Every structure is written in C-alpha cells, then in structure tokens.
C-alpha cells in the first residue's frame, strides 16, 4: 500500500509526475471533476487546522468524491482513549483514503502501518508536513519555472517548523540549491536536519540572525510563524513570536523577482502592507495546495487500485 509520510517517499521522477498532474489539473479542472466519484476521503484531524483540512476537503470535492472525518481529538474516539492503530483500522472500513493530522510525531506512520487504505500525513507534530511541501514545490516550480538553481531563505521558527524541515528534505534533491537559514539562536534548525540532511549531502547553507542581511540574495523567501502550540513555556513564545516581521521597507532590499511564501496562517510575521506587493505569493500558494492535493489523492488511489488489481 502506497502512503505519503514524508516528501522523500516520492522519487524525483515521481514527484515530477505528480507536479505535472497538478499542473494539468490547474489548467483543465473540468476534466477531473468526476475523477473520484464514489470515493471517500476520511479527514482525521486530531488538532485544529483550518487550511490543511479544508484544502483536503476542497481537493476531494473538486474530484467529485465525498469527505467524512473529525476536526479535533475531542470529537473523535481518541477522547475515549482509543489508539491510533485501532482508529485507522476502523476508518479503513469507511473510506478509500485517509488524511491524518496529529500532534504527536510519527502518528501518521503508526496509522500507515495498520491501514488498509492509503494514508496521507497531513502533519505530525513538529516533524513532517509533506503536503505543505508538495504545495511549496508546486508553487515554486509554477512561479519560478524550476526547482534547481535557487537560493532559498527560510525565516522564523526553523526548530519546530515542520514545513521547513520537509521543504529542505525535498529541495536538496535538486541541483544547485542553496539555503539561507534565518532564525534566532533558540529556534535554529535541529541537528537531524542540519547534520544528517544538509551537511551529509554537502548542500551549501548559511545561518543568519538578521533578515535584512539575507534578503538581498534570495530567490525565494519562505516565512514561518512561531507556533504557540510547540512551546512548553509561554514566556519563550512571547519573547520569540515577533522576532521577524517582513515589512514594505524590508521588501525594498529584496530582488525584484523574489517570491515571498508562507504556509499560512500568518500572524504578525508578514505585515499586511506586503500583501499588495506582486512578489507576495502566499495566497496563490494556498490555491496550489488544492491542486497538488488533488493530484496526490488521484495518484495514491490509482496506486491502491493497482495493488488490489494485482492481489
């Protein structure tokens, strides 16, 4: 059974095919309007998420399928103490594909190990968020025309920011990608990404603290939110939450073709005045998120059908 736990589950060739399919969906939406007729997506969200959940739901509805699920642990059997393994075995009886978000790291993998239907990791704590990565890749490829030969600035919470970890893992497979890591000391990239991914693969990167020092050399600036739910200590959160704010003044230092991306929701880290800047691409990114999730649902359901045909 094919699942999606991390962006690395797809080879570069498979990823290219997926992004091509997403591009075709963008251009020919009617062609796919009944592609998943009769199929059901279970959206199992153990922690609050508006964008990712609605994006999955929109994707399945756009494909002519249906959606069921829950949007918090309180409204699921987890509140009665049911294990993830048991929940997914039951959900496998109700749906054809499952998207799961859970605050615990590795939860989606636990589900995939016991599932009879494809499982998509829709975010597991501070660990991985592969569909956001697919969204980011599709956005960059669509707006920049390529995924290689880029200098990518990652700014904000690089420690708990799972979108950043997943994006790095995916982008290092392309030629001549360079990273500028912009964060306060306390929120630097964890060593399992810095050492085992960047250093181990000889990927050039630089760590900086001031956004102004880095912005002039970037092709893409990827802003992140400092997430309250990742902190055990409220004082640390308050001290760090407004560390970076992208303003119109800072955008004056940026190249004219630099993209500003953000996984959303934003709080204060991008000033609203930047929204009108043509380089601000975070709302387009949300739209690409629906196309890429449509492509992913189609791809995984096709793979599951192949498995069942060959069984």
């Amino acid at each position: 059974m094919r699942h999606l736990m991390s962006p690395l589950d797809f080879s570069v060739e498979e990823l290219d095919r997926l992004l091509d399919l997403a591009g075709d969906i963008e251009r020919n939406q009617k062609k796919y309007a009944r592609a998943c007729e009769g199929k059901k997506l279970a959206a199992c969200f153990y922690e609050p998420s508006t964008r990712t959940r609605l994006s999955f739901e929109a994707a399945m509805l756009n494909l002519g399928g249906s959606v069921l699920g829950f949007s918090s642990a309180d409204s699921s059997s987890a509140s009665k103490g049911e294990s993830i393994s048991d929940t997914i075995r039951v959900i496998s009886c109700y749906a054809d594909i499952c998207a799961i978000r859970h605050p615990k790291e590795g939860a989606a993998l636990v589900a995939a190990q016991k599932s009879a239907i494809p499982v998509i990791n829709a975010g597991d704590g501070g660990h991985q968020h592969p569909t956001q990565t697919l969204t980011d890749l599709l956005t960059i490829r669509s707006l920049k025309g390529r995924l290689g030969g880029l200098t990518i600035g990652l700014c904000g919470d690089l420690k708990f920011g799972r979108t950043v970890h997943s994006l790095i893992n995916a982008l290092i497979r392309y030629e001549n990608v360079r990273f500028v890591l912009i964060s306060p000391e306390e929120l630097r990239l964890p060593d399992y990404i810095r050492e085992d991914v960047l250093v181990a693969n000889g990927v050039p990167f630089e760590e900086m603290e001031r956004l102004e020092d880095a912005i002039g050399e970037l092709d893409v600036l990827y802003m992140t939110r400092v997430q309250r739910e990742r902190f055990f200590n409220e004082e640390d959160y308050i001290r760090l939450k407004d560390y970076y704010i992208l303003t119109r003044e800072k955008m004056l230092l940026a190249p004219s073709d630099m993209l500003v991306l953000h996984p959303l929701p934003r709080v204060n880290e991008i000033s609203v005045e930047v929204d009108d800047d043509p380089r601000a691409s975070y709302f387009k990114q949300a739209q690409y998120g629906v196309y890429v999730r449509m492509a992913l649902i189609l791809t995984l359901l096709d793979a599951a059908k192949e498995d069942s045909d060959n069984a």
Partner: protein
Amino acid sequence: MLNISGISEGFVLDHIQAGMSLQIYYDLKLDKLDCQVAIIKNARSNKMGKKDIIKVECPVEALDLDILGFIDHDITVNVIQGDRIVEKKALMLPKQVRNVIRCKNPRCVTSVEQELDQIFFLTDEEREVYRCKYCEEKYVSPGKRRRK
C-alpha cells in the same frame, strides 16, 4: 588474587568497561536465565587498566548479540566448549534496536500509543547515531557516549 573457576560450556563476555557489568547483566536479561552467572568487577587488564567480565554457563544462542553490540561493540565474546575457547564472536552495531531504549522526545507518538515497539534505526555508523523510527529523535549508542 580472587579465583573464579572457569566454565566448561557457555560464554565469557570480556573487556567490559569497568562498572558496566551489572547494567549489561540486566540489559541482556541474564537475570532471567536459570544457569550459573559470574560477574567479575574491576579485574586487572593490560589493555584497559581495569575491566569487568561476565561468565555465563549456558549456550551462546541465549545471548542477544545485537543488544550487546549496541551497548558496546568493543566487548569480546568468547564461546567456550569443552573447557576451551572455540570461537570469538565479533560484535557490530545493529542496524535496528527494538525495545532496548525508549524515545525521550515527549512529542513522540511512542509516548502515547499503547503496545508500540520502541524502534531505533542506525542512521550514522561512524558517529554511532540511532534515530527513533517515528520522530527521528537522536540517540548516540551507549558505547560511543562512554568513549567520549
């Protein structure tokens, strides 16, 4: 000089870092075996200054070499048959350890999901780094940490 008699059938774990024998005794679950076990602490050693030794009078198959390799791959395993050393087993870092160590990351799914095995994969042989299968939390092998 303290004399401990030899064993005719079984195995001897030699070159254990001094002070580690009791932990290894429990990690290998030797306390569960119904056979003679001798633990020698602080034995004199030309190579190590002092060392611990464990002698166990039972077939070597009872020994989990993976766990031992994980704890310290510098330990020597001598297999004894008919009062003689018939084999010296080389220890290696296992590719995977299951239910030997627990993930310390409070955000890891292993902290909440019942009946889930604690599995760590060897991700960097040179630095002896293991990572949790679920959350990728780092764990340096006990032998490497002691040698630091």
